[in-house]
């Protein structure tokens, strides 16, 4: 008699436990997915470092030409324009976007024309 009562109770316990587990799992997965989707952490960080690299390359090689560069699954847009502050200055405007066209990161710096 005692054993039978315990078995019945275990089934109920198991069902409740499974429901709790499933609820906790689904809530946590949803929360993490939501955070990751909203920030796009990986892409943004990677994109920013690609922009830094491109800026360093531009300054080193003095490639002051507006252009679009395909890198991995990203498109870097480099826009060079004259600075309104001084004739001797240029503005380098860099943008990185993923295939879908979403801009992940931007970077802007003013440099000397003949530096």
């Amino acid at each position, binding site marked *: 008699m005692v054993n039978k009562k*315990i*078995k019945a*109770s*275990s*089934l109920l*316990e*198991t069902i*409740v*436990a*499974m429901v*709790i*587990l499933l609820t*906790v*799992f689904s*809530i*946590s997965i949803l*929360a*993490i997915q939501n*955070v*990751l989707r909203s*920030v796009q*952490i990986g892409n*943004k*960080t990677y994109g*920013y470092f690609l922009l*830094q690299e491109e800026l360093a390359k531009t300054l080193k090689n003095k490639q002051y030409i507006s252009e679009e560069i395909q890198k991995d699954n990203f498109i870097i847009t480099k826009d060079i324009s004259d*600075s*309104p*502050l*001084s004739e*001797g*200055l240029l*503005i380098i405007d860099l943008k990185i976007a993923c295939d879908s066209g979403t801009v992940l*990161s931007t*970077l*802007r*710096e*003013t*440099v*000397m024309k*003949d*530096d």
Partner: protein
Amino acid sequence: MIRASALFIVIVISFLLASITSGIVYYTFYYKVQLANHAVYHRLVHNLNSGIAYTLSLAETSSAYQKQIDLYNEGSDSVKIDAKLWGIFNIASVEAYGKGIALKKAFMYGYAPSKESNVAIYLKNSDKGLRISGNTTIVGTCYLPQGTVKAANVDGFTYQGPSKLINGEIRQSPDSNIRLNSSVLSHIEELLKYDFLNFPDHFSSSPNESSEKDSLIRSFTDSTWYISYADARLTDCMYLQGNIVLYSDQPIRLRNTLSVKDIIIVAPSIIFSGKYQGTLQAFCTDSIVVDSDVTLDYPSTLVLFKKNVVNASAKIHLKERSAVSGIVCAYSTLTNDDHIHVQVNKGALVKGQLYSSGSIDCQGTIYGGMICKTTLLKTNTSINENYLLNTTIDLTKRSTYFVGSNLLPANSKKKVIKYL
């Protein structure tokens, strides 16, 4: 068989899972915040670099100015620039700010020598052409009186240098000596008025600076400290660096134990004791003596600014094995004053530019150029004008990255000497 306490165990496991999940969520949130801070920081770094580029591109209308500029006319990227003369060089401090963060960077800048001053030798025109003797080597463009150079015997020394007397272009020098920049000269004159006690940032008004400190370091993003050499707090001080003007209205002998970097020293005369090493700009009215084995690193400056006719023996003297990297300049405010002199002894080295509005006696080595009215070679038996003996002057051995001051004729383009 499932035990009766299964629910309890599952609740514990769920609690653990919830804790881990919330930890991950919190970490992600924290990472997101840090990423945003990182983005702001890097944006400011780029704005700071832009501010530096702007400062360097600015046509110099005034040596000292404060500006606040909006880099892209969008109201979100602004920098503050505070520029001033620091001795014969310039210093600018740039501050980029936004979202509660401010980044500051100070740098020293100068100017590359112009074609006129980027020479091995520049002598004012006269009827006496240059004569060279002994083991003399000259490399670089030279402006010489009458455009002539000849080998000569002096005190028994015959010419033993290269077959080509000057390895470089020879041009006839103009009738006038090279003119120095009047605004930089005015700044030097201002320094030599010793009027520092009235300055609001005089060190005596900083009683919090303890005498127990063995070093004083002042950032160029702060205001200048004017410290009297007689200040008791300097007695045990061993190191001075940065935005500091050390002054004395009495002649000083700089002790070996006081190391300095980037500071300005103002005194009637200064003696650098043997084996002294540092980076500084010295401004004197009477004399500067650099003892043997003294090393003054780039960008150092020795300026003798003679403003009194009474001082007949205004002189900069670089003794044996001393080395100065930067600019050595002897200037007299009196017109046609020949009694201002620079003596470079055998074994002494100047890397940079050497200027005298009077004469230079150079028996040492110059990696760079020498500009003066005339050279005076003093031997045991005679004084010879426009003679060089056992001298090496090699413009090509000066660093191609050498940046001087616009005190001497210079290109208009500014160049960074160092970040501070």
